[in-house]
């Protein structure tokens, strides 16, 4: 048991799997020699060598194509897309090729690969390097979508993603890289599709993801001191989606709040809200409320970006007013 940063957890998770399975390889831009632009993959080249840890040209389509073709033929690649915004330059590989290959071929083609990426804002990188695009991924049938909020989960969910026989998009949050927690020694393996209840409370259910988890927890602490007792669910993966945990909780609390970093329209919270508004309608005691980044591009200035992305204060305020 030692303190581990979310950043260090990335290379620990990858190394754990590369040690276990010699068919796991890792590729991306500046990931080998330099250890990644976020220094998430330091040490991998030294341990596993240049055949398994590969620096690529700036060619995101070629990177994901290489990953897919290798996955189809017995290799288990982990590919890095440096910033999740860059999925836009290789989206075809994700949505039309990787996601659909198994179904289109009625099960002939396997695509066991992981695409990891730096996602999210609060880092003052501006509109083209700060997006939360996990909802883009969730909208595409055929890919699994994971977004850990803690160092432990980075390791355990990375392991689960690498071992999964299906393609997984693994969204690391850039603003969480520096956070740390105590993480057990030895192998860690979590399960995809299981949410984690991070706090139990009877007054409402807050569903959050990635950076929004610590913010929701902070808001819950604030509200607790005012006598409002919240459950906070860390979704951890969007596909598979653990609706059971959400529906069970709403049955108890009768109120649902989602906290999303993606811009509002068609965010994952809309999906969750629509499921609850259908399947738990009679459990609800009041409106389903979504707390999101407004539907606009992200500004670069710290002042403006902090206004855009849900803060603990905004979460607490919204819930306080709604439960009033």
């Amino acid at each position, binding site marked *: 048991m030692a303190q581990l940063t979310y950043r260090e957890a990335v290379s620990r998770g990858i190394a754990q799997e590369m040690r276990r399975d010699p068919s796991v*390889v890792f590729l991306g831009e500046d990931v080998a020699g330099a250890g990644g632009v976020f220094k998430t993959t330091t040490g991998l080249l030294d341990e596993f060598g240049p*055949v398994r840890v*590969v620096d*690529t*040209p700036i*060619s*995101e*389509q*070629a990177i*994901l*194509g*290489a*990953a*897919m*073709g*290798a*996955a*189809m*033929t*017995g*290799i288990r*690649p982990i590919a890095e897309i440096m910033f999740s915004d860059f999925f836009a330059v290789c989206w*075809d*590989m994700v949505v*039309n*090729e990787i996601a659909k*290959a*198994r*179904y*289109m*071929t*009625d*099960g*002939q*083609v*396997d695509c*066991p690969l992981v695409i990891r990426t730096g996602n999210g804002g609060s880092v003052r990188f501006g509109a083209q390097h700060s997006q939360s695009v996990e909802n883009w991924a969730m909208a595409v*049938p*055929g890919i699994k979508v994971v977004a850990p909020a803690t160092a432990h989960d980075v390791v355990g969910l990375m392991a689960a993603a690498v071992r*999964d*026989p*299906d393609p997984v998009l693994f969204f690391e949050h850039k603003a969480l890289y520096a956070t740390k927690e105590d993480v057990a020694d030895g192998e860690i393996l979590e399960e995809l*599709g299981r949410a984690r209840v991070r706090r139990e409370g009877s007054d409402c259910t807050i569903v959050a993801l990635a950076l929004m988890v610590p913010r929701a927890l902070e808001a819950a602490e604030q509200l607790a001191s005012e006598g409002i007792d919240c459950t906070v669910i860390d979704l951890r993966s969007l*596909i*598979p*989606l*653990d*609706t*059971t945990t959400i529906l069970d909780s709403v049955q108890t609390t009768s109120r649902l709040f989602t906290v999303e970093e993606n811009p509002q329209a068609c965010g994952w919270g809309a999906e969750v809200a629509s*499921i609850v508004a259908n399947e738990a309608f009679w459990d609800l005691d009041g409106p389903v409320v979504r707390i999101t980044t407004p539907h606009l591009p992200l500004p670069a200035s710290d002042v403006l970006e902090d206004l855009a992305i849900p803060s603990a204060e905004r979460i607490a305020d919204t819930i306080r007013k709604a439960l009033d």
Partner: protein
Amino acid sequence: MSGPSTDVDSPAPTARPGYGQHDPIYPEPFDDSLDHADIPIETRLELYRKQQEIRQLEQRLYDLFVQNLVKGTSHLALGMEASGAAFGVALNSDDYSFATYRGHGHTIARGVPPEPIIAEMLGRSTGLLGGKGGSMHLTSVEHGMMGSYAIIGAHLCIANGAAWSAKLRDSGQVAVAFFGDGATNIGAFHEAVNYAAVYELPTIFVCENNLYMEYTSIGQVTPVANPAADRASAYGIPSTTVDGNDADAVYLLAREAIEHARSGGGPSIIETKTYRHGGHSRADPGTYRPDDELEAWMAHDPIPMYHQRLLRIGVGERELTEIETSVAAAIDAATEAAKSAPPPDADALWTNVWADGGWQWRN
């Protein structure tokens, strides 16, 4: 190379004809000297058989369209059989092929039987993809036919992955990606060829240049004469152009490129000059093509030309007829079997999204 040289390192673009107009491009004459090429006679008979298989399959599919039995779209390779056949013969059985939506021929050329192909076109449960993929996505992993891809360019990148995998596994396999002239202008082409060159991957890029995108002549939107081959220098890899309607010519190049790749020499580009007999897809009569161009290419049909070559080098007409009729019988039988197969079960909708066989994305 430095200094303010005003030299032009590369030629200025030549004038191109205006929109919607283009100069006809005629085939080079069939190269009879290849009668004496170093290709065993059994190989040549195999090349003939595979060309026949492709031709007769495509003709049958065309007939089935006309009978309105094929739903959706479809893209035939009538007139373009030679290169699929040549690679089908030249590849080892565990090598990888990646094709486009115009991939029926590349599929049967890898030894996939005609019945599941036809059944897939008819949307039957016995189809190669259980009816889920359709005409544009024929795939048979067990035959090394790693898929047909309907969005231009992607599979060139994916073929690299299979080639990389072969290298990682030290298996000696190679990967071939077939694509059209039009595909050379999309970004994925550039990324894929460059990537293969950087890692010296055993990927063979085969551009089947049939002179047209869908309805637009490639020369109208491409500033070099050979849209694939003329770009190889941008990646420092070898390239060749070839009469794509001469199965022997393509076979010789294929053998060489495969050997080059298999022995660690890296990727290369082969650009075959060919022509489709029909339109781009089922709906297209192909009227944008100058009459005399079409005529010249119809006369440069790979199959009768190859038939003549075989006769010239001493194969008997009877042996050729036997091949033709045995292929016909196989296609007939496959058609009947496919036609009498049931449509997919409703349950099939819900299978094989995930490796567990199912589709559940939530609990």
